[in-house]
């Protein structure tokens, strides 16, 4: 469904990605693992063209989206939940969800509220008044409301309490039944529980690809992720 081929990207003069290739198939949860600063978030931003790729190809649902306008990429059904959640702080929870409906061809607010029923009680609250966990729920609910065909989430469990992290894992498990997911995650256990396939990113390139079982057998975690 999503193919990334040999993309290079940089922030100004500083190159970050060096020929990354990956694929997300239908009904698949793909996780990107790696230490801080290796380029995991940049991969998602480059797919969304929030960082312009220097070279390479990105295809979504068979169509070339490399370098297309971010709004056009999103309209094709690519949902994105950034690392810092990017909740609209001056808008209410309801308006944050409505923002996802503005350009959507198939908005699905009810589905989003089914995943996160607690948001129904917070609809009139402003984004900035929410806790970190609530903001994360809203960020994912907003992407679900947009009616995405594939969801990309950047470290959704970061900074969450263990109980909320477990709830989030359950929601992502349910979400994975509806759409493929490309997940950037630091939490190894969550990755092992959710992923069908794992890419380990090292210094802006792919160092390992395989199933969670293959990753454990190959000792890739010790090799690439341990300090």
């Amino acid at each position, binding site marked *: 469904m999503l193919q990334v081929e040999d993309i290079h990207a940089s922030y100004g003069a500083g190159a970050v990605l060096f020929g990354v290739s990956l694929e997300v198939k239908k009904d698949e949860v793909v996780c990107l693992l790696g230490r801080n600063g290796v380029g995991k978030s940049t991969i998602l931003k480059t797919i969304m063209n929030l960082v312009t790729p220097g070279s390479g190809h990105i295809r979504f649902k068979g169509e070339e989206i490399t370098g297309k*306008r971010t709004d056009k990429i*999103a309209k094709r059904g690519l949902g994105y939940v950034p690392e810092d959640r*990017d909740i609209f702080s001056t808008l209410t929870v309801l308006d944050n969800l409505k923002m996802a409906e503005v350009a959507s061809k198939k908005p699905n607010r009810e589905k989003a509220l089914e995943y996160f029923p607690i948001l129904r009680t917070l609809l009139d609250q402003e984004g900035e008044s929410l806790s970190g966990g609530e903001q994360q729920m809203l960020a994912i609910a907003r992407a679900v409301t*947009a009616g995405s065909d594939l969801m990309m989430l950047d470290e959704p469990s970061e900074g969450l309490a263990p109980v909320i992290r477990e709830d989030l894992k359950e929601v992502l498990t349910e979400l994975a039944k509806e759409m493929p997911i490309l997940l950037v995650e630091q939490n190894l256990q969550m990755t092992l529980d959710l992923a069908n396939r794992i890419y380990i990113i090292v210094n802006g390139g792919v160092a390992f690809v395989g199933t969670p079982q293959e990753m454990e057998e190959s000792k890739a975690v010790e090799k690439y992720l341990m300090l």
Partner: protein
Amino acid sequence: MTDFLILLAGQLMNGFVFGMILALIAMGLSIIFGLMDIINFAHGAYYTLGAYVAISVMGFFDNFWVVLIVVPAVVMVVGFFVESVLLRPLYGKDPVFSLLLSFGVMLGIVQVIRLVWGVAYRPFSPPDALSGSVYLGFLHFSVYRLFVVGMCIGLAILVWLLLKKTSVGMTVRAAVDKRDMVKALGINVSAVFTVVFGVGVGLAGLAGALAAPLLAVYPEMGIQILVESFVVVVIGGMGSFKGSIVAGIIVGEIMALTTLWYPEMSHVAVYVFMAVFLLTRPKGLFGSAI
């Protein structure tokens, strides 16, 4: 009521009128800065253009109400052109480029005004229906000035409703906050920029038309008021809609009251106030949120 109190009340009301015109200009300046990070040096030129277009439209139709519709529309179209053709290629580049471009646009508009309408001061009388004065119980006050206050308050409410109660306004507020996230939700932010820029400069044009019967109309009339409008935006808080209105009134009153006691200091007093105010509240009255 003593003569002094009547004089003071009259001057306070004049300050309020000027403050509301400043607020109308600063509103657009502030929203454009808040959304697009552009310090629009040309904003005063759009105000001037509004005044001159008002003179021509009045000469052609002889109807002030037509002026109030045509002027913001014409200035808005100029704004759409400047944003979509000149400014858009500079997005994502060093902000100095857009700053310099807006300076160039200001010089360009002023030169076009000089060529089309000449360099001399141009008179512009208020319409008959709004001329004369009305007795407010303690002083006579110009009907036209009261009309300007009413118009400015009405426009401020209209812009506030547009920002707070419509999906366009919601999108603008979201884009001010998190521009990339708005794009990632499938919304064309460039189109939002064009609309906001057009509306912002349209408000400046309308302010020029409203101010034309009160202040002198000449090609450089926008330069002084641009500087005062920047002071309003800074005191109100960069990007704050509410701040523009409150600070506009404050600056208008400071100028009016200083004129009463020490006319030579009326412009300087505003800058002194801004400097002292920023020492105690560097973010301005209402921070940076719209």
